[in-house]
């Protein structure tokens, strides 16, 4: 392969050829439009951190008026859906079978305990620890119900110190408002990485890659030619997701579409690069798709901070998240939608995404040369 050097004209021809190929491939169109739409709908409806009506049991062992009042307080809150019981054995079984997430015991000597603080805690709360998240919710909110009820009964004296919380950017604390922008990043990871990995692996598998390689076009031109159409599709898909988020799910758009465009473009660089790297290192669609799922979607889902806060992870895992491009994209998207254009946050994130992308492309360049030599 002599007389190489980069030719814009040849690249243009390749981009044109690949674009035609993409447009003729119904699955590419399906991936760009149908899959993101379906996934957006599923993410938006299925993922919610707003717990309410958690099923619990309330065991009323005491017949006192105060005990009845406290039980009524549990029934009255929208956080719980109460199954009343007289004996803790009735509800204990339901916790084991998973029908109830826990239960509250108002003991026989509740009235005496209420009079003398020294007799121990007022009520006992049992939670189903097999679901730790729900368990801590039940524990926290059950304590809250008791505390509020006691304070009210004691004649609600204002606490000595009170906190006045204000949630910025999301005052009504709708979890969808921060989950949906994050979901866009996850969906784009899937589409960018998976699509590229599979398309290029298919060419290797069918031997058409070798055919293109034997032309005077350089490796760089061929790969760019493949990527440019997918880059375009990726941008269109992001824009479509953003439209769904704002119009169908009422997520505010406080930043600019220009910022969204820049961020998405920066994100597509590592995303497509990763796909290319996967296909270059395994020339089979089966292995490529497995790798794309394992290194693309799941790490993005788990390690990007989209659902699980990065700061809560063990230190070694936090370090690993710096390699996940979605990490930067999730944080930036949440800001674009909910806060506005905070370039001081975007620019470091964009640079990080480009750096990860550059790393992928360097590895691709090394890998591709090698496979052509052998």
């Amino acid at each position: 392969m002599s007389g190489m050097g980069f030719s814009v004209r040849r690249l243009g021809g390749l981009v044109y050829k690949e674009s035609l190929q993409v447009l003729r491939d119904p699955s590419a169109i399906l991936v760009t439009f149908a899959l993101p739409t379906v996934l957006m709908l599923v993410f938006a409806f299925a993922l919610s951190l707003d717990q309410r009506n958690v099923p619990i049991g309330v065991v009323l062992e005491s017949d006192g008026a105060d005990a009845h009042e406290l039980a009524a307080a549990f029934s009255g809150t929208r956080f719980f859906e109460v199954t009343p019981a007289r004996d803790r054995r009735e509800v204990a079984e339901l916790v084991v079978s998973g029908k109830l997430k826990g239960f509250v015991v108002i003991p026989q000597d509740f009235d005496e305990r209420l009079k003398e603080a020294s007799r121990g805690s007022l009520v006992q709360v049992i939670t189903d620890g097999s679901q730790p998240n729900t368990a801590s919710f039940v524990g926290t909110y059950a304590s809250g119900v008791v505390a509020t009820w006691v304070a009210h009964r004691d004649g609600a004296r204002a606490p000595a110190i009170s906190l006045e919380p204000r949630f910025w950017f999301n005052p009504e604390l709708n979890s969808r408002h921060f989950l949906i922008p994050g979901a866009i990043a996850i969906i784009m990871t899937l589409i960018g990485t998976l699509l590229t990995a599979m398309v290029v692996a298919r060419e290797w598998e069918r031997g058409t890659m070798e055919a293109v390689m034997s032309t005077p076009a350089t490796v760089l031109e061929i790969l760019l030619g493949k990527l440019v159409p997918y880059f375009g599709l990726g941008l269109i898909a992001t824009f479509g997701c953003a439209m769904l988020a704002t119009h169908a799910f009422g997520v505010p758009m406080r930043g600019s579409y220009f910022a969204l465009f820049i961020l998405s473009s920066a994100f597509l660089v590592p995303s497509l690069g990763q796909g290319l790297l996967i296909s270059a290192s395994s020339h089979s669609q089966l292995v490529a798709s497995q790798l794309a799922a394992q290194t693309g979607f799941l790490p993005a889902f788990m390690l990007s901070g989209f659902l699980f806060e990065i700061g809560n992870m063990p230190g070694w895992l936090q370090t690993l998240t710096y390699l996940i491009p979605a990490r930067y994209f999730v944080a930036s998207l949440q800001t674009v939608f909910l806060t506005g254009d905070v370039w001081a946050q975007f620019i470091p994130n964009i640079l990080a995404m480009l750096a990860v992308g550059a790393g992928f492309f360097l590895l691709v360049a090394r890998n591709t040369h090698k496979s052509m030599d052998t």
Partner: protein
Amino acid sequence: MRLAAQIIKEMLVNIFDEQTRLSFIGPPLLQLCLLSYAATMEVRNVDIAVFNEDAGRASHELVERIGAASFVGDVVAVDRAETISRLVDHRDVLVGIHIAADFSRDVAAGRPASVQVLIDGRRGNSGQIALSYLQNIAKDYGAELSGSGSGGMPQTEIRNWFNENLIYLWFVIPGMAGILVMFTTLVVTALSIAKEREQGTFDQLLVSPSSPMEIVIAKSMPAFVIAIGQAALMITVGALVFDIPLAGSIPLLFLAVVLFGFSLVGIGLMLSAICETQQQAILSVFAVGYPMIMISGFATPVENMPDWLQTIAEGSPLKHFLVIIQGSFTKAMPPLEIFANAWPMVVIGIITLSLAMVIVKRKLQ
């Protein structure tokens, strides 16, 4: 006899290929061990910005107590309210605390003193939890100051059954195992028929004496074996490496694994029969698989979903399998409850396999 030969052939092709086989063991195990540590909703290392305009002792004591709390990472002292908004805007801190100049005076005079707390709503979940911790600190300190201390005796005694310390890994590992097994199985089965068709070897099957039933059974065997093997491996790792108590019945759990594998193979083969190319087959796996994760109850509870989506979730084998595997680790879910989640998987498997068979038959003719 013909069936046995065909099964052996499928096994040879699928399981004894080095690269393919490794991709079934190494990466999923690595993911199981790596990603599971990420899934925690506990709140730790919260960075807080404090703007304290008050020179009194009470406010300093409050800030000190907050700084000493175990969930707090760094406390950044700032000297302007604008700095708080900038730090929150840039996501440098999750919480900003603004104590006004008259805080200590109010406390000393016995007037209710208030503190402004600004929380980043982009991270609403952690923010809410952090707020509840902060409120406990404020309440305790306030009670001490006003001398009305509740005597240190908590009003509620909380006990977490099955997982006393609420170790998240005990919940996440079984769930991740289900997800990873699902993906491997779906991909392997979905590719099986589609691959033959794309490579033109499906035509050879057409002229062979095999019946559609034999083709479908032979095609499903490798994935079925892989599903059971992978699940068994992951359950063993969960129990032995991660020390998760396996309190439930092991035979019942194994039965659930078999039925889970059966239903997955059914779904995969149905997709494979519908799709013309491998690429379509893989895309269909993702189009079906990712929504199944979302509605499985792994990430957020099924009960939080709208009713119509909960109904759809009943059609996902992953949802049922997660109920069983999470009910078998840490606690011993009663057999009745296990069967209640086992039979839907059988139904899903039968329906999808029959559909696969019908489609193959139609394409054979």
